[in-house]
């Protein structure tokens, strides 16, 4: 019943990759992380969730005789023959501190903390390199127009890998900027839940305390009875 047992012996094609310039032969179809491990690397930097959610493994690569520089996540990108690659161990970036309670959800709050946002030259490089396929430049332009809500929604899937910021000629730190924008949107531009306020009031007044106390003391037999009688919404 173990999850992975090989039934057939597979004939695996090997490819050459160049990890920071050194050649290794690795099986085709592995992700960059798994290929590096196959080659003998014990990963410490440039690895996190290994599932495309944490942004720890921004990777830069290119191919021989190809002038283009490619980017991706090492956990989600499959190795190709002739790939020259490096996983970035760290992305240096400015992260200004702020007190969210004292900010307003407007352009002037944002530009004070991230004045470089006005330097955007609309080259669209950020959008082209984003492994999440976010319309990064559009989100920046929305901020410049003061449309915080749209920028927050458009940038929502950002995993803060930092690739856009490293390629940006205007040196905008997109992911820290977007973090601020999303918090402003969540806190100030989205209506608050009324149910929640009501429920908190009830909890504070002790409305459920007796019933909970009874439940805590009840024990497994009674719990089972209640569980099996549940009415499902």
């Amino acid at each position, binding site marked *: 019943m173990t999850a992975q047992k090989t039934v057939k012996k597979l004939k695996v094609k090997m490819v050459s990759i160049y990890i920071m310039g050194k050649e290794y032969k690795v099986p085709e179809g592995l992700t960059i992380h798994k290929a590096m491990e196959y080659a003998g690397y014990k990963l410490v930097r440039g690895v996190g969730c290994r599932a495309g*959610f944490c942004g720890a493994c921004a990777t830069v690569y290119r191919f021989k005789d190809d002038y283009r520089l490619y980017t991706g996540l090492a956990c989600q990108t499959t190795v190709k023959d002739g790939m020259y690659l490096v996983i970035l161990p760290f992305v240096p970036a400015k992260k200004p501190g702020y007190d969210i309670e004292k900010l307003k959800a407007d352009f002037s709050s944002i530009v004070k903390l991230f004045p470089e946002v006005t330097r955007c030259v609309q080259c669209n490089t950020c959008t082209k390199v984003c492994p999440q396929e976010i319309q990064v430049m559009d989100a920046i332009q929305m901020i410049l127009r003061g449309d915080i809500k749209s920028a927050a929604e458009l940038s929502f899937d950002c995993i803060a890998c930092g690739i856009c910021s490293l390629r940006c000629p205007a040196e905008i730190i997109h992911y820290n900027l977007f973090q601020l924008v999303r918090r402003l949107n969540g806190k100030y531009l989205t209506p608050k839940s009324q149910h*929640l306020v009501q429920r908190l009031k009830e*909890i504070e007044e002790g409305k459920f305390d007796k019933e909970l106390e009874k439940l*805590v003391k009840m024990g497994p037999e009674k719990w089972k009875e209640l569980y099996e009688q549940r009415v499902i919404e």
Partner: protein
Amino acid sequence: MGYPGYPEEFWDSIEKVEATRERRLKEVFKRITPEEKEKLLEKWHPDYRPEGKRALKLGPNKGDYVPNEVADILEAYPLIDPNDIDLEDIDYDVDVLIIGGGGSGAAAALWTNYRGIKAENILIATKLRFGDANTKMAQGGIQAADRPQDSPPIHFIDVIGGGHYANKPELVRILVKEAPLIIKWHEELGVMYDKDEHGNFIEIHGGGTSRKRMHAAKDYTGLEIMRVLMDEVLNREIRVIEFSPAVELIMDTSGQVAGAVLYNLETNQYYVVRAKATVLTTGGFGRLHIQEFPTTNHYGATADGLVMGYRVGTHLRDMDSVQYHPTGAAFPEQIVGQLVTEKVRGLGAQLVNIDGEQFIYPLEPRDVVAAAIIRECYGRNKGIVTVTGQRGLWLDSPMIEIIHGEGTIKRYLAAMYRQFKRFDIDITKEPMLVFPTLHYMNGGIEINEYTQALNADGKPIPGLFAAGEVTGGVHGKNRLMGNSLLDINVFGRRGGINAAKHAKKAKVGKLTLKHVNNWVTKLKEAGIAPKRKAPIILPEYRGKRALSRSINIGF
């Protein structure tokens, strides 16, 4: 034509799934009876395989059965020799040390700070980067009973029934009662939950819930919560030291926990942290690959906290049960084991076999669905077998677009859509192949309502607090979806508050690692050979050939 992301031998089966879809849209599979459930779990859930476990030979849980992989790290020798560590030379002298940089750790740090401990007197030590944790990978949502037709007591019954009545009820009470408070805290911090235009949360079912109480932020719920908490920790200038996992707790001569030895993964030097209160928020054990299952967990989930805690006397509970998430990706090979969120089923997708037929109600609790999938694949032989021998069944995601309208997947399951699109599979049109994957450590260090870690007699170990996945009791023997993001916030907060309270009056005496020497003596007495060392810090995935030629010449 065809399905470019899938090999041709799957196509027939996919066509069958398509052919039965219209009929199945109206079909509700019968819920399992309590008797059927018991039989199913006993025969097919991996927890019930006796060869997967063994009794612990020593420590506070001596005689208790735990997975072999857990016994291996608990019955292991320390990484450090206490004689090498100079405890007089202190690198960090703080009020509160938080070990682990995930959701529980961040919540604990913030609430410690809210309760008057200055940022410079708090230290978060973490193995990878701050925030690289299972929290970020949690997709589906967070439970809180905040709608009028729901209540904390109804939530309580769901939690305790899902947990097979093995939960610690006082902890469940806190979980359900403080849930709305956590959502409010998040709202004030600016977490972007999915809401309608009036500000009402969009809430759906999760497996085992009797009311719709799953709050979500698309299918990046954990990421959204984690990054907001991180942002706040950074704004408050709380100190974080990355790539420096704790490898041993430090005690003082009066018997309280008084900090930890950290190990810098890059320079190989140790740091001594002295702390008045220590909070363990180290998470779970997915990367131990219990019974060789793949895992949804992040790279650092190696249960280091259990190992360190056990050596200072913490009692563990419910370690005999392991959560396998029913739907891990089973294809393509590059993402095998990665999470396919329960929200896919919450939105209406059914599980179907190779013939396109249902075999289980899709929103039974996780252990039940996992066992049913294993039975369908191995007992009834109704699964797909991939070229690597991986088995799997179909999760019929295109149903979501039919039920809720076109565009629903891209809007609410953006992460899932992207994950599969990278490999040419369009989940709005094609089903996904899934199989259970190791997901969550149901049990862990026993705590009380104040998050104090308890010893085998049920007494608090002074100075030591624990919160989140490293602890046991909240979820009994099976956690429900949406209760771990809740757990880390509720108990992370409590951990922070109680650690702050403790730190304000605690006095730390002379530091010692005597408990580590004592542990070594006990291991020898139990006849355990000095082969294994723990905590293991990171799993070993290096290629066999490379590893066999790896030598340390100490240059």
